[in-house]
């Protein structure tokens, strides 16, 4: 049996970890309904599983304040229960069930939480971390494993308070050599996703027509890692490398950087909040205090 398995493990076996954005605040504001979106996504997953017998798919739902594993193709056995419902491939009945349970849980969590007045972003950092943990387990399972990659289907805007955690996950993915593809279906640009795909050498695309989402997904994001070396995928024109400051979580493009730990601040601080190093006085402040003193002298 082991020899058969190794024969079947060709170059293009892939493990796709899909991060699904289920942020209700985003889905209530878009033209496409969640159900339309889901049908595109489920068809896409079917297609990926159909490309190769040994392909695996894992779906993680990214909620407003929590995230959870929804589906794992290696765990569900075919021909399971719930095939009686109309039109639904049996494979995804469990997925939908788990998704519904997850949304209920997420709603309860938000009731308990105090009102964080933050941007309506989904918990991208959480789901990225979960995906990376799963992939790490796959790596440790043996040397015969599919090639993993992460596909991030996101519509919600970036939450600057997650900047540090997201950057950490991106760098871990880079270390593990796991590409993070990202498909952004929202209105504004997502700097996190662009940076993630750029750093981990994945593919980033923001399709303008959500009606044809399935086509975009199958032509761009279904290619496995081996095939990408001879298929020309869209390259981004430029990457938005803006960071968010560590003190207020604002997005900034010009600021102060601690020379010890490289944390970014938008205004001058006496002490770095991350590593505790004390900063010397900046030249700007020195000049302004001198000029202020000069101004005061002739008045008195």
């Amino acid at each position, binding site marked *: 049996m082991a020899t058969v398995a190794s024969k079947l493990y060709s170059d293009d076996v892939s493990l796709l970890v899909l991060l699904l954005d289920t942020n209700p605040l985003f889905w209530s504001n878009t033209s496409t309904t969640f159900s339309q979106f889901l049908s595109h996504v489920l068809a896409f997953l079917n297609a990926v599983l159909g490309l190769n017998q040994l392909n695996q798919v894992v779906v993680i739902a990214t909620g407003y304040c929590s995230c959870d594993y929804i589906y794992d193709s290696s765990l569900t056995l075919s021909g399971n229960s719930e095939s009686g419902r109309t*039109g639904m491939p049996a494979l995804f009945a469990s997925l939908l069930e788990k998704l519904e349970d997850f949304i209920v849980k997420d709603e309860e969590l938000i009731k308990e939480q105090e009102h964080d007045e933050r941007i309506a972003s989904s918990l991208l950092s959480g789901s990225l971390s979960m995906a990376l943990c799963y992939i790490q387990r796959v790596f440790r399972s043996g040397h015969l494993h599919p090639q993993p990659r992460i596909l991030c289907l996101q519509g919600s805007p970036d939450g600057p308070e997650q900047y540090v955690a997201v950057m950490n996950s991106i760098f871990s993915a880079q270390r593990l050599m796991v590409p993070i593809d990202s498909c952004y279906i929202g209105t504004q640009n997502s700097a996190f996703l662009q940076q993630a795909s750029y750093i981990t050498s994945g593919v980033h695309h923001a399709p303008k*027509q959500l009606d*044809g989402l399935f086509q975009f997904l199958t032509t761009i994001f279904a290619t496995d890692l081996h095939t990408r070396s001879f298929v020309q995928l869209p390259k981004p024109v430029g990457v938005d490398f803006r960071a968010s400051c560590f003190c207020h979580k604002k997005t900034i493009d010009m600021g102060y950087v601690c020379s010890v730990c490289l944390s970014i601040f938008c205004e001058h601080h006496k002490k770095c909040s991350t590593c505790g190093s004390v900063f010397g006085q900046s030249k700007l402040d020195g000049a302004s205090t001198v000029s202020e003193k000069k101004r005061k002298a002739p008045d008195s």
Partner: protein
Amino acid sequence: MSDWQVKYKSSLKDRGTEGILKLREGILLFVPNDPTSDSKLKVLTPNIKSQKYTKEGSKKPAWLNLSNKQGDSHIFEFQNYQDMHACRALITKALAKCEEEQPKKPAAVLTSAEQLSIADLELRFKVLRENIELQRLHKEFVETKVLTEDEFWATRKKLLGKDSIRKSKQQVGLKSMMVSGIKPSTDGRTNRVTFNLTSEIIFQIFAEKPAVRQAFINYVPSKMTEKDFWTKYFRAEYLYSTKNTAVAAAEAAEDEELAVFLKPDEILAQEARQKIRRVDPTLDMEADQGDDYTHLMDHGIQRDGTMDVVEPQNGQFRRSLLQDLNRHAAVVLEGRNIGKHLFAPPSILSSYVFHDVDSENTRSVAEALARVKQVSKADGETTKDANQERLARMSRLAEMEDLQAPQNFPLAPLSIKDPRDYFESQQGNVVNEPRGAGTLKRNVHEAYGSLKESILEIRTKGLRDPLIKPEVAFEVLFYPVVFRSLTQTISTAKNIIGKNPRESFLDRLPKSTRDEVLHHWTSIQELLKHFWSSYPITTTYLHTKVGKLKDAMSNSYSQLEAMKESVQSELRHQLSLLVRPMQQALDAAFQHYDADLQRRTAKSARGSAGEANGSV
């Protein structure tokens, strides 16, 4: 007499007009005999660049050819050579006097440090002439006073900087050839040996043999002339080369001065001994016994490679190749610091027979070298305190680590921060527009509700049928950014995007627009470069500079907008795509400028408010 009867010829072929040549104060006048002829000539002596004349022995008449700075030449034919020589001598004297007065030329007027030399200006013009684009930029910015000349060239130093490299002259070092390698020329007939001594050679001899130098200072000119000195020196060298130690001993016994050259160099030996004393045995060895190479007789290889046994009492009259080599090498490595200012270009002093010897020059060399050595000796000499310190250090370093007492260094305690602090502090100050709490809850509730409905819908209805409508699929297929290579096979008349992508969009623009676009590209880059380099603003100069730059940039922006509108409608979209990055960059700059301005006014308002409070 400064009047001569001459014939003036403007060129060689000219027959020549007769007249009188007068030399007065600074002027050379030629008055023709025939008052009607118009070849009167007046030449100012400073203008005369050179004079040529015919030789006496030749059959040619006595001609004097004067050429002036403008390049003309005047030929005067004299009646005899005597006249010509007299005239020439007077002219030379006049020229020499002129040259003396020359240095009184007014110094270049440099009022401020920014005034450039003419050569620099010429270089800049040349660079501008060669590079048309640069010229255009220069015209646009420097002449409209947006940028000053210096700022424009500040980043282009590479283009201007070739001259500075040429100016650094190389310092010539000492020759590697050894002094003893200089062979005299022998005259078999008269049995004379001729040495050619140049000042270079003298310098080397003095540098390598301090005893010789000392002897020179002592003996010349008190006891003997320089000529005699060198004669004796070369006699000594000769004796060394013959390896005849008995003869050497005999001559040394006779002639006391010769003996100085024949005995080993005491000064060198002393220097070496001092160096050894100064060395700290606990440190790296700077010098050791081997430096005292005058006493190393172990190899005893003579200059021609033979080995000889030597009687002990005559041992001092021997010198081995190694000693000479080592000393020469040491002097060459030390370099030419000493004789820099002492040398005119080397003039050949002749042989045993000396013409015009400038013994002053040689003496000054010797003295200078002696002074330098003295200075370095004084520096090197150790005072008593220095000695004590050295001894203390030696004893300290010679300690053995294992035998020392245990040392407790002051330690800083390790502080490992609680990671929770880090994460929680990051969540701390989140600033956002406040929203009503109640509305938020309601919105969220509704949103969740709709989400759940969607899922229910899909569970009941199943996947969408058809998943994608054909028109949508077609549109996606023709999405230009992604699928340009696909569409090149499908060419439809109305589909502009399907054109051959190899043809660059720029080619399809009319020429003037294309040039304008490219020019805007370079000028915007230049402006942005200067703009961003002047932040943070610390002086009023930078403030005004930024203001001017901002005006120029808004100009460019409006010009870009106008260009977009002027172009044909089918090209407009592509042009705006092309122009967009430039506009985005300008927008970012404007934003920054406004934000900075706001900050400054806020700060100054606060400052003045504080002042008002304080003064009250």
